[in-house]
């Protein structure tokens, strides 16, 4: 019993820490970036590259999903394959969403992105195999949720009426920036995870880590759905 409460406390502490660090990196677009986006005109390749990379590196929702995706991928070939699926998914909808001027509610999309984190945590626990009796195609699911992440990226850019002039180039720069940011974030995550994997605690904490992942996903969902309801 005391062992249980101890574990719960541990979990709570970790979640709180995760939350506070997340709050510091408030996930949106900061003020200086905002005023740049509102005043910019014409092709601005490097600035958009930078904004894309920064958005991904500070985007804890995307990063949590990535952590979930690569948590049990031990071969670099698999990591590459899954990350490519994710990249493919979010690039399609980022470009399509902005160029096609697809209007989706940012809160709902961000709630679905939260759901993708819950999904991945649950999936890593073998939840679908246990519950449905079979494993949904994980590659396809990563692609599918990648599509939603891309819409999320698109809504961040659509908040600003970006001028038509140079839109495609700016958008591509943003997209490339997102991939660079993802690559950089992935490098850190992989180093940390590979280091941790050598320790016996990795397996022992796998259940706890993925439970936390689910919990963080639920928090993102609650946060965004409330935002949808009140704003």
């Amino acid at each position, binding site marked *: 019993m005391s062992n249980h409460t101890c574990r*719960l406390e541990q*979990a*709570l502490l970790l*979640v*709180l820490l995760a*939350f506070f660090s997340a*709050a510091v990196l408030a996930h949106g677009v900061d*003020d200086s970036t*905002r*005023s740049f986006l*509102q005043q910019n005109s014409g092709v601005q390749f490097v600035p958009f590259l930078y904004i894309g990379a920064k958005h991904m590196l500070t985007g804890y929702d995307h990063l949590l999903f990535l952590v979930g995706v690569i948590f*049990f*991928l031990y071969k670099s070939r698999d990591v590459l394959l899954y990350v490519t699926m994710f990249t493919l998914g979010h690039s399609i909808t980022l470009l399509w969403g902005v160029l096609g001027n697809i209007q989706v509610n940012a809160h709902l999309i961000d709630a679905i992105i939260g759901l993708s984190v*819950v999904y991945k*945590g*649950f999936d*890593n*626990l*073998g*939840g679908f*195999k*246990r*519950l449905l009796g079979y494993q949904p195609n*994980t590659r396809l699911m990563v692609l599918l949720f990648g599509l939603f992440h891309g819409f999320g990226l698109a809504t961040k850019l659509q908040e600003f009426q970006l001028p038509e002039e140079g839109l495609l180039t700016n958008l591509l720069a943003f997209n490339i920036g997102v991939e660079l940011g993802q690559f950089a974030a992935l490098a850190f995550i992989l180093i940390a995870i590979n280091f941790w994997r050598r320790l016996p605690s990795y*397996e022992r904490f*796998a*259940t706890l880590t*993925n*439970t*936390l992942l*689910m*919990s*963080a*996903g*639920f*928090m993102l*969902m*609650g*946060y965004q759905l*409330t*935002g949808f309801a*009140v*704003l």
Partner: protein
Amino acid sequence: MDHSVNLSTLIKASVAATIVAVIALLTLILPAEYNIDPTGIGQRLGLTVLAQSAEASPVDPESVPESTESQQVLEITVPANKGIEYKLQMEQYDKVTYEWMTDGSSLYFDLHGEPEGDTTGYFESYAIATLDTMKGSFTAPFNGSHGWYWKNTSNNPVAIQLILNGQFQIIGIKP
């Protein structure tokens, strides 16, 4: 991908994840982000000030920056046989004192305002005449763009000197 926990652990994990998330949402996230504080804990931790200060601060960059008192002397040219519209962004009850004069010829003008966000093409005229100079002031009856439509029926461009005093943001020549 072979980490598969047994059913009871799975249920425990899912329930624990949900409970932790709900607790964090109700006590921390919602109070801090939206000032929604059903438990009162957010208030006691002082987290609700975050959402309150966000509500109170006028730094929403999407809104028009607040008008400030300013003076501007502007030179505007109306091309031959063309009409142009020169507008100022003003909040309701902002006041502007103006004086304009042409380089000689008289122009037909319509000093008017259009409410912000209006799509019906509605506008309210404050003065319509054909003059080569005019001095006056007006107070914006609503938020929106306010200014002049000048029409040049001559075959030569006409230059206007416009002096503005008051609370406004220049939008400039509207196409």
